[in-house]
């Protein structure tokens, strides 16, 4: 079990110590061209969570590779990439293939990319064709059947799943009743997303043999344990990092206590515990998974 940050929820360049307290640093989504992102206001707190409409602000792949990446030396880096066409993703994956990055996360929940399984499969296949790097498909839970999307990603050659991205929400200003965010709606993250994330991880664990990075509303060690039990192999922290940059250490300690209380020798032993008995093939699948990935150099035994 590795602890990651969720893409867009940490900048290692302004908070190196936080990045170092994680096993993997995931970048904010990088697009082919630089993007300034949306106008402010970009964030709002709502009951049970927060909304964001950052708009994929990033320096673009060239400046990212030429400048940012060098400054991340010493960290295990996953690069999140996003585009507006299948070709965009292929270009981004090809560009990163020769760089010193541990994995590529395909952000398949961009506002302008349809989340239907067909296009997820196409995007993954196009990236798969041009890189040896482990490919994680990051999926939206806002689909009729996320397991179907996961199967499409697996069939197209994804090495793992990142579950889940935000779902669309809206907040209105207390006084004016107009949308708080300049863009109108935004992505809902935090506590309200947690049951949704658990359901998505649970469904995808039953549908595929891919390793899963679970995320969505994680704020405590107990929450990590539940994602593991639902079927996640690794867990990412998002919104919690905003209020508590020391969360990784605290959560690891809480997780240890939870694991001990539930009689698990370690975190990896808890993976899939919510399925035990009615998902007998899980362990067999895990073994297959481990072997499949050994040659990629990526430790997915978790």
């Amino acid at each position, binding site marked *: 079990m590795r602890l990651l940050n969720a893409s867009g929820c940490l900048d290692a360049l302004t908070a190196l110590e936080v990045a170092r307290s994680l096993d993997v640093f995931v970048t904010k989504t990088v697009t082919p061209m630089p993007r300034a*992102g949306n106008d402010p206001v970009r964030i709002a707190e709502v009951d049970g969570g927060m909304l964001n409409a950052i708009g994929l602000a990033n320096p673009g792949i060239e400046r990212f590779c030429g400048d940012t990446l060098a400054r991340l030396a010493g960290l295990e880096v996953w690069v999140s990439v996003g585009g507006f066409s299948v070709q965009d993703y292929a270009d981004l994956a090809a560009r990163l293939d020769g760089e010193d990055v541990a994995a590529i996360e395909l952000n398949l929940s961009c506002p302008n990319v349809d989340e239907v399984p067909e296009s997820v499969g196409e995007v993954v296949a196009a990236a798969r064709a041009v890189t040896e790097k482990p490919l994680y498909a990051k999926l939206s839970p806002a689909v009729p059947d996320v397991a179907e999307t996961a199967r499409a990603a697996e069939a197209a050659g994804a090495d793992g799943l990142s579950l889940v991205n935000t779902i669309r929400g809206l907040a209105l200003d207390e006084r004016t009743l107009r949308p708080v965010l300049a863009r109108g709606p935004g992505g809902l993250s935090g506590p309200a997303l947690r049951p949704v994330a658990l359901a998505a991880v649970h469904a995808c664990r039953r549908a595929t043999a891919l390793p899963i990075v679970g995320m969505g509303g994680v704020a405590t060690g107990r929450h990590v344990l539940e994602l593991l039990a639902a079927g996640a192999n690794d867990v990412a922290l998002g919104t919690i990092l905003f209020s508590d940059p020391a969360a990784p250490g605290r959560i690891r300690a809480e997780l240890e206590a939870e694991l001990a209380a539930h009689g698990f020798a370690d975190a990896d032993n808890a993976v899939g515990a919510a399925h035990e008995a009615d998902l007998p093939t899980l362990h067999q699948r895990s073994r297959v998974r481990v072997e499949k990935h050994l040659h990629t150099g990526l430790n997915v035994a978790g």
Partner: protein
Amino acid sequence: MLTRAAHSVTGTEAVGPYTLLRIQRGDLDPGLPGQFFMLEAPGRLLPRPMSLCLATESELAFLIDPIGPGTRALCSLELGDRLAILGPLGNGFRLDVERPLLVGGGIGIAPLPYLSERLDNPPAVLGFRTSWHAEAAALVPNAEVVLEPIYVTEVMPAGHDVLACGPAPMLEAIRALTPHAQLAWEAPMACGYGACWGCVVRIDGELKRLCVEGPVLDAAA
């Protein structure tokens, strides 16, 4: 270093419509005037950015305007309550100025008491909506106070190094008058340390993170 720890409330007092929230200082570094802290707001998901208002040996104090759920929760804290505090964060005022003049508007005076102390009580011009709000002027020595419809920009003496904090229209007006002013801006913030990209403002024509580049910016920028 991003240090976050729980601190005890040592007292609260009403200052006009605002609340002065006093916190046990412990080993909190007060930082530079104009820097800010992220204060845990009870019952809310995200912390709220607050400028340091006063620093004594044993206490740090924040002046808070209860304008929404987070600030209302902070103003309702009571003696002995504990809250997590992260900071100091961002870039404060440069103190190497020759003829400082502090300018503040409304709750924007929050960082000025600490700034005044660090600059040996320079002159200050403060603007408020009502005389009730102006009660907060008592926290800033050597201050001239104006009430609406008079604006601070009408009474600001010339030839000073302006250090200002207040509502955006006030800062814009000062920027137009004095290109060398140092201005402390606000933006909604989720993290305060560069992680969320929520706090962007237009700086030099680009959208930049205020918590990283500011909150104090040169007027010329």
